[in-house]
């Protein structure tokens, strides 16, 4: 079965969830946004720490990111919570979200007379939005509409050999079925960028891969850090990694084997189907947010040590390559890929298990993290300083 049950949006994108996003346009509106979320169902707070006293490019970047999160197909409606004097262009944010055809409301804390008044007004607005969208029905859609994000974190020796290859298997399958896969973590390409470049669709895409790696390195060098030097680390070598190529390939293997269609910026969505690279750092909160900004409906997340993160509006499926970690943290880990290293299951068998779970989660089944509300790991990746 190569279909799933999703919420078809007006622009043709398909949601695996139907949340009301409560979007503070600036960090100063987080308290109000959180209170609204606590007092309503079906709402998720887009709680970030940006939006003011930043460089103009970063303010534009945050505005773009908030727009794209509101556009994410897992969001059925949005409530913008504005302080009133923020640096983010809240008018542009509101206009862009109205253009999606989804219900949008906006409140202004300063105009409403402060925190408690804004919380009350916000709960009323959120309630109206929930009533508007809660009756939406799922319909059966083809997997070619599917957009998947991928990530690895808290990795160990098993990640490169068990859980990342499992994600690679699923990524190849989604691409073969006409869907879209986004992978990122530019910092982890270092040492194996030449191998990724061989998979590029054309010379331009290959040069773009080189460019984003060079830029990420240059940013580190600008503060006196050489990310390439001393890789692999003594701990990596003790664990069995011999070269930087091996270390980087262990991370890249989760992208599968398909052609790389293009490189997109942190605030961008893929402009077509297939496998795409998103220029992004490796840290969970910024990477997961980048995937949501890119339109991901579900994120597959590989771990060995046990990374528990989850995003507000996008379900994250945890695939654990280490059987000991899985036993210890089975309430956080959705799939036990540790069976690969114990010889009980093959990479292909666990890959099929994950693929089936992906269809179920895309169709509405909750991930373990969602069920216990581990869904707040987010922030946006900025380039400039706070000023």
């Amino acid at each position, binding site marked *: 079965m190569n279909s799933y049950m999703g919420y078809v949006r007006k622009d043709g994108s398909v949601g695996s969830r139907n949340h009301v996003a409560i979007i503070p346009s600036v960090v100063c509106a987080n308290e109000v946004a959180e209170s609204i979320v606590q007092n309503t169902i079906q709402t998720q707070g887009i709680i970030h720490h940006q939006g003011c006293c930043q460089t103009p490019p970063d303010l534009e970047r945050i505005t773009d990111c908030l727009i794209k999160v509101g556009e994410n197909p897992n969001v059925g409606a949005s409530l913008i919570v504005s302080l009133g004097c923020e640096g983010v262009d809240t008018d542009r944010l509101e206009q862009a979200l109205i253009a999606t055809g989804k219900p949008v409301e906006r409140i202004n804390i300063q105009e409403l007379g402060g925190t408690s008044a804004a919380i009350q007004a916000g709960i009323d607005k959120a309630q109206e939005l929930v009533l508007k969208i809660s009756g939406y029905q799922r319909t059966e859609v083809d997997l070619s509409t599917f957009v998947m994000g991928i990530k690895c974190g808290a990795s160990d*020796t*098993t990640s*490169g*050999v*068990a859980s990342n*290859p499992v994600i690679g*298997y699923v990524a190849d399958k989604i691409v073969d079925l006409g869907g879209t896969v986004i992978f990122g973590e530019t910092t982890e390409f270092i*040492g*194996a960028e*030449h*191998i990724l470049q061989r998979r590029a669709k054309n010379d331009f895409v290959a040069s773009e891969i080189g460019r984003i790696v060079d830029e990420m390195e240059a940013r580190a060098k600008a503060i006196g850090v050489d990310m*390439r030097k001393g890789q692999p680390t003594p701990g990596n*070598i003790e*664990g*069995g990694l*011999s*070269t*930087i*190529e*091996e270390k980087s*390939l*262990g991370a890249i*293997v989760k992208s599968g*084997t398909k052609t790389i269609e293009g490189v997109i910026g942190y605030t961008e969505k893929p402009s077509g189907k297939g496998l795409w690279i998103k220029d992004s750092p490796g840290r969970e909160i910024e990477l997961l947010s980048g995937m949501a900004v890119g339109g991901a409906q579900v994120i597959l997340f590989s771990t060995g040590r046990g990374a528990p993160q989850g995003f507000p509006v996008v379900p994250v499926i945890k695939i654990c390559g280490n059987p000991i970690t899985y036993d210890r943290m089975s309430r956080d880990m959705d799939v036990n890929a540790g069976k*690969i*290293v*114990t*010889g009980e*299951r*093959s*990479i*292909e*068998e666990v890959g099929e298990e994950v693929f089936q779970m992906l269809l179920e989660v895309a169709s509405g089944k909750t991930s373990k993290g969602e069920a216990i509300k581990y869904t707040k790991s987010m922030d946006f990746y900025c380039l400039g300083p706070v000023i």
Partner: protein
Amino acid sequence: MSEKIRAIKNHDNDNVATLFGTATSGDIVTILDKAGKGFPLTVLQDIPYGHKIALIEIAVGQQITKYGEEIGIATIPIALGEHVHIQNIDSIRGRGDWDKEGAAK
């Protein structure tokens, strides 16, 4: 002598596999491919958990392949069943010491 120790071969073209277990010289380990098919291999020397074992004889300068891609080259001859690590392979990336400029210094 433990066939219970397993090693994962990630790609059909790989000439190394990653061991999940601590093997001692003379142990017979099971090499598993992506589909879960296994074959036995005798370990030539002690190999720690998470380290690599050679699946064929590898000559000096020959590519070490994992995930179907190169992870380095052999710096000394490597025998079947031998531990493959920094003592017998080296990166071919970021080698400033190989650059003409570097050599001139």
